[in-house]
């Protein structure tokens, strides 16, 4: 499992888990970022700056702190929190 801050530019990834409390999660949810969503990393700022991701047609800048809390997967495997592993078709 990797975190969003390690995903390279132009790569797609799927959100599989958001570490952190209700607040941070609902905050990301409101910007349209949910578990299971695919996103594309558009830019990565230097000096541990934010990552810019494209999701559902809009672009969101995420600071590195938050990016390290977003666990992603790049080959379409969604692990649910309960531990069972469901396999989805490789997305868009």
């Amino acid at each position, binding site marked *: 499992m990797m975190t969003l801050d390690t995903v390279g530019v132009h790569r797609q990834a799927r959100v599989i888990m958001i570490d952190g409390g209700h607040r941070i*999660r609902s905050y990301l*949810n409101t910007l349209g970022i949910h*578990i299971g969503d695919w996103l594309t990393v558009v*830019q990565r700022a230097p000096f541990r700056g934010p990552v810019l991701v494209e999701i559902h047609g*809009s672009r969101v*800048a995420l600071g590195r702190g938050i990016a390290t809390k977003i666990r992603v997967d790049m080959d379409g495997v969604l692990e649910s929190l309960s531990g069972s592993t469901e396999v989805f078709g490789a997305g868009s």
Partner: protein
Amino acid sequence: MRFLLAGQPNSGKSSIFNSIAGYRSATANFPKSSISYTATRALIAGREVEVVDLPGIYSLTSSDEAAGPAERYLLDEPYDLIINVVDASRLGRSLELTFQLLEFRRPMIVALNMMDEAHRRGVEIDDRALAAELGVPVVTTVSRLGRGLKQLFRDGLRHAAAAVPPVPPTYDLEVEEAIAEVATGLTSRAVVTGVPTRLVAAKLLEGDPHLSGRVLRADPEIARVVEAVGGRLESAHGWSADQVVSGSRHALAHAVEDRVVTLRPAGDGWREKADRLLLNQWTGGPIMVLILGGFFWLVFGIGRRVEAPLLDAFNWIQGSVAEQFPAGGLTATLADGLVMGLAGGVAIVLPYVIPFLIGLAILEDTGYLPRLAYILDSLMHHIGLHGKSVLPMILGYGCSVPAIMATRVLESEKDRKITAALTSFIPCSARTVVIFGLVAAFMGPLWALAIYLVNIVVIVLLGTVMASRMKGASPGLVLEIPDLSLPDVKTLIAKTWLALREFITIAWPLLIASSIILGLLEWGHGAEAVNRLLSPLTVWLLGLPAAVGMTLVFGVLRKELTLVMLVQALGTTDLATVMTTQQLLTFTLFVVFYVPCIATIAVLARQMGWRGALAISGLTVTAAIVVALAGRLLYSVFG
């Protein structure tokens, strides 16, 4: 009748509002620009309608600052129609809020806005199908061009008069069951909130921070029901109840989007190409320096060219007015004060302020500000903040008052406090007048640039100290970056005018009155007393002419006053003949840092209490003395 404009940030609510209100609600191309709401009355098809521009909200359950007031308004205030403004180019995400609004079961109409933008991105929407999916009327609009707005309000009026409540959306079966169960618990305990119980139930399950507090206070028992039902959802799905509910809404929104949208491949336009350079990890920083540097040179260049002939003209007028009256008499003093006050407004302040305000409006409306937040994020981490603090701080170069109010876009209390404190240190356009009018004009633009850099260094130092001494966690940067857009000339003019009107109606009369009062004080030797009182600071410590003492006092009222009063106190616009360059530099440094103006102190006090406001004011004076003294000493050694 009362209509509410509700929608996500940057969906175009304020543009719609302004089209009927004239120009009263500021539009800006950065998310969450409007935090408080504005209302206006308009005549629509012969009926008087009050239209309210609610603050932009991504979701009603979010913990973010704007959601509270917006939700409270939706729950408690009387209104006849919700106009849900939806960004057509981001339909899926926008519908998540639309579904939440449908839950209020009030007459609602959807303004499918930014149709031009959607078309450009290859997003074609079947608006009839969307209306059928949502069960409310949908009107397509391009609010920036005013397209479709007439129909929107006409249909809205008809729909409001018919008063048909919409049907709430249907989520996943388990979610529906959970909501129904909590709702039963609510009705059986007769919790009166005046809103649909279904809405309250969903919000309780989602852990809505605003409403649940209210309900739980009225009925603490319900917490157990919510916990039990939520627990069941969690064990079935593996995710917490709030995620299951919001995830279900998310899925529904995107399912509807899929059904009504056809995507056409759209090539990259200039916006995407420009962004690749503006946000690129190698070119983004240098381009930012070029843009901000160019901004500075342009404002200075225009200001200087316009100022010089105006000052000549006023010097001539001043001379000929003085000839009309006996020298040293009361009438001469009054006339001179009046002319100086007028001249100060027209010749000294406006030449720099107008280009500055236009430039700032361009930066805002093109959407470059959120990009600055992105580029500067890692730098801001060094002073314990994050990129979003850049937004209020840049606005601070315009006017500290709205800038400090804009610190509300920050999520954490600590960030808000530090940013507000630092913002009051940023030279606003009035202080810019002093920097440009004194240092740039008499010593050259590089010296002016140096002052800005010194200011930034001081801010960085202060920020570092404050961040290390204050506790509190910050979520870091999460910011939507809107598409670049070409600024619209009409909006730019309107926006600049809005800021200028403030100056003309408030600052200028004050300028003229103060100028006359200063004249009278000097005539009656009252100014001398003040100047003598301040002379340990002005003369002894900073090596300035004693006459500047009074100007510093006036500067607390409005910073524009300092320069004009200086001209008045020293009796000439050619200040280089009465002050040395060292004195000009020292004076400017002091003015840039010392006590923010009264309006700023008031806003600080509202934001962080009187103690905080006074502490910051004290800090600014200390900083001003230290910096001005350092400037004086360094200049005498190296200058």
